């Protein structure tokens, strides 16, 4: 029997626009193609701008991970201009980025990923009292009462009876791939609703330090939110108390709701610990500097590379080894389609040569995506929570090792289970627990500095362009919720001459390289991967969502002017 061609476009419950094509044969996926279907050209737009404005432009690459490009951009410009930000500013950035991680991962789990595992209609068959017993066996979360579960069940029942199903219209309800008992489904639906309210609350930490969310404000050289305990429009005791309580509520929800739900749901889907592994190399640039931004040994989540799933060695990360290829992408390079270019030498000329719209299939095309294909030392790399947790584990990160061991023990699986769709989703939850706890440490350090009399949040001496060299370039790293990110900036006479980002979803979702080697999405979809009913491709959603796609981030372009650049300046 010939393979069936499958198209899933749009992939929903992600950021941005993604199309997956596949071929399936006898219930298995035999081949897969990932297509990013949006292009905006932000880096072209960066040219000629004031480098102090760059964070705001690049922040708009993505409104979901709304912190990550702004901070990476500030770090790149600060690296180029030799600015060291005050410790308070670094702690504020850690708190803001930490809350971004925690909030984003929880939203991902409940609102973007859960419906791949949770059948909302099955919750109608649940016994609320039994649901409360189940929940109590997992967690002390005080809202887990039979009364609350009954109310949720009644809501769902009336909603379904209304016939106006809204966002649940044409979901894959009743699909045999759903395995949770009704009570677990009801518990998850109730927590889906609670998480909606929770995320709105805890993200206000961004509003206090950055004025709003999405797209809080940042500042090259530090942060704009001044500290004055006696001021009415500054960081004062009232604001600090609010922040501390948000951190407490964030940690509590993560430990008492998200993490127990994750373990409970995962225990019904252990077959997915052998599905969707894909690429065997993992890259983490590390994040949350607890010293100087360039003291890489003081990153809370460590930096490094795992090759071929060998956890006995963590290889050092060298940004000079990154190249991007366009063999399968709708661009052209002067030196031809098989060349790989480092970010500082990159060029981009968008050149669409695919079929006219409306598309039927792209899988027969040589080029099929607006994403380029990043490679490290010519190898594809998975980035994101799984990569970070594997690097942390292999680096001997005690808290990570303990929690990973705990999860593997609870699920009664070995470490190999991590290399899978389920492992990716579990790693995200483990990481969230680590960071929700660690935010307390940063908060305490911040308060202690204020207590000792240090209220500085900004470094003034390199603010004015007159203090800058005629030419400068810098690199800003950041490990974002979805994985390793890098910004590269070149500045000439006070203006940006070239700007580039290499972004997590480009690493993970990029198309095939010149050797025909698939990137992480495509490789995962063909790694022991089922697809029972091509008309209802829930299995594809599970694996793609396990990466938490962020497609607007993934597509970027370079200066097309071909300006010569000098060698990469990195530590």
């Amino acid at each position, binding site marked *: 029997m010939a393979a069936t061609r499958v*198209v*899933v476009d749009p*992939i*929903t*419950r*992600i*950021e*941005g*626009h993604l199309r997956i094509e596949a071929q399936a044969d006898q219930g298995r996926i035999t081949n897969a193609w990932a297509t990013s279907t*949006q*292009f*905006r*050209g932000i880096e072209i*737009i960066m040219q000629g*701008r*004031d480098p102090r404005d760059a964070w705001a*432009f690049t922040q708009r690459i*993505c*409104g*979901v991970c*709304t912190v990550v490009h702004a901070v990476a951009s500030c770090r790149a410009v600060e690296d180029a201009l030799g600015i060291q930000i005050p410790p308070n500013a670094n702690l504020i950035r850690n708190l803001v980025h930490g809350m971004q991680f925690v909030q984003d991962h929880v939203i991902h789990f409940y*609102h973007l990923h859960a419906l791949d595992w949770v059948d909302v209609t099955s919750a109608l068959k649940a016994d609320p009292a039994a649901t409360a017993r189940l929940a109590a066996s997992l967690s002390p979360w005080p809202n887990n009462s039979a009364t609350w579960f009954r109310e949720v069940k009644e809501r*769902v029942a*009336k*909603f379904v009876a*209304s016939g*106006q*199903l809204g*966002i*649940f*219209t044409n*979901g*894959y309800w009743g699909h045999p791939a759903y395995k949770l008992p009704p009570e677990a489904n009801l518990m998850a639906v109730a927590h889906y609703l609670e998480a*909606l309210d929770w995320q709105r*609350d805890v993200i206000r930490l961004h*509003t*206090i330090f950055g*004025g*709003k*969310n999405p797209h809080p404000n940042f*500042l090259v050289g*530090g942060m*704009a*939110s*001044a*500290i*004055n305990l006696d001021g009415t429009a500054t960081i004062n005791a009232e604001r600090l108390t609010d922040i501390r309580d948000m951190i407490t509520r964030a940690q509590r929800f993560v430990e008492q709701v998200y993490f127990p739900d994750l373990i409970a749901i995962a225990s019904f889907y252990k077959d997915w610990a052998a599905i969707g592994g894909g690429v065997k190399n993992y890259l983490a640039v590390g994040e949350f500097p607890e010293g100087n931004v360039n003291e890489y040994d003081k990153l809370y989540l460590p930096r490094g590379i795992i090759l071929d799933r060998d956890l006995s060695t963590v290889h050092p990360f060298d940004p000079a080894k990154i190249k991007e290829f366009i063999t399968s992408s709708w661009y052209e390079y002067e030196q031809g389609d098989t060349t790989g270019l480092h970010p500082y030498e990159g060029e981009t000329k*968008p050149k*669409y040569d695919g079929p006219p*719209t*409306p598309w*039927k299939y792209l899988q027969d095309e040589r080029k099929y995506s*607006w994403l380029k294909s990043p490679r490290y030392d010519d190898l594809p790399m998975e980035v994101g929570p799984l990569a970070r947790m594997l690097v942390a584990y292999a680096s001997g990160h005690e808290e990570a090792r303990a929690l990973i061991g705990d999860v593997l023990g609870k699920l009664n699986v070995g470490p190999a289970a991590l290399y899978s769709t389920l492992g990716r989703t579990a790693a995200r939850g483990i990481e969230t627990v680590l960071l929700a706890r660690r935010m307390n440490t940063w908060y305490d350090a911040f308060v202690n500095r204020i207590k000792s009399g240090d209220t500085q*949040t*900004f470094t*003034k001496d390199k*603010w*004015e362009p007159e203090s800058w060299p005629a030419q400068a370039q810098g690199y800003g790293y950041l490990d974002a919720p979805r994985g390793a990110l890098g910004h590269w900036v070149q500045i000439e006479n006070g203006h940006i001459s070239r700007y580039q980002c290499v972004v997590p979803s480009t690493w993970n979702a990029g198309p095939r390289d010149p050797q025909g080697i698939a990137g992480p999405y495509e490789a995962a979809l063909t790694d022991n991967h089922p697809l029972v009913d091509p*008309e209802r491709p829930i299995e594809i959603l599970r694996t793609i969502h396990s990466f938490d796609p962020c497609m*607007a981030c993934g597509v970027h372009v370079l200066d097309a002017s071909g300006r010569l650049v000098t060698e990469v300046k990195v530590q």
Partner: protein
Amino acid sequence: MFNPTSHPWVGDETLAKHLKRRGVSRRDFLEWCGSMGAVLGLSQSLLPKIAQQLAALRRPSVIWLQLQECTGCVESVLRTAEPTIGDLVLDLVSLDYQHTLMAGAGTAVEKALADSMAANKGKYVLIVTGSVPLSDGGIYCTIGGRTAKEIVEEAARDAAAVIAVGACAHWGSVQAARPNPTGAVGINKVITDKPVVNIAGCPPIGDVVTATIVHFLTFGRLPAMDSEGRPLFAYGKRIHDQCPRRAHFDAGQYVEIFDDEAARKGWCLYKVGCKGPATFSPCPIFLWNTRTSWPIGAGHPCIGCTEPFFWDTMTPFYGRLPNVAGFGIESKVDLIGASLAIGATAGVAAHALATGLYQLRRNRAAAAPDTAAAAPPPVVATTKSED
């Protein structure tokens, strides 16, 4: 928010019954109507009408298209204030198509879109986030293999109302900044046969979106708008005129550089680049994220994100806006703000020109709206941030 299950609504149930079942008293409801009325700038005498109309409604369909964008506007609406009652209001609608939250994918959701458009022909509200790339046949944004232009044109055809949420849908935003590589435009360049209300901002405050929907559902028409299509109830005043730091501006008390003593006293941010004098926005009144704070409140100057072409006209963001007169010469500030609100192709520096030119430029801009989209304005340097 925008999630019908959070407070699900029975199909044949009116809002009044629904609220009662949810344990919301009539008094709470009227109170909420009052606060929404205040947000919308309505007189007290209209409040009974709002309450009556809302209570009698069944859930109308909303179709939400996400085009060339960053999803920040969706996230903003997810953070809307007044969670309990606000959720109920968003339950006014049946959200039949919305990528970020929908359970299904691919053909299943494209069918949901087609079915909803057919079943609710002429009655559904179309919300759009994201711009429409027009260059190269529109190939820079496709969904289900079709271009954004084709999709939004089709969805707008039978929509009862069209709401552009955010700077991208409004005028193209960051991807339309010079040199606009993909030819990105706001949806009113594509939808030309019906009014489009622009909820301006990058992103806008989510509460403005909900208030606009309430306005349409209650009164059967879109709210009064300025020449940019922005609802007056939210964008009728400049930040500068509503700013809690205004007294410091008038008193000549300025932050000279970030984290100086003036910054620690919460003085005016004009000299470090604040665009409040040229920006029409509800930020200081609505505040952000359940009324927690707002950009100036957190010590950063306004970047003017509710104004068209702000990526070009308001940059460099830390450059001082020229010719904002100090104490006592208020009229000039008014002119700058009014002129920028038009979204003409002039840069900030041009706004320092004589009074008569503003009206002239406004007229020209109105006469030739396409020039703005096709050729975004050049970056015009404002004055340096030092004296």
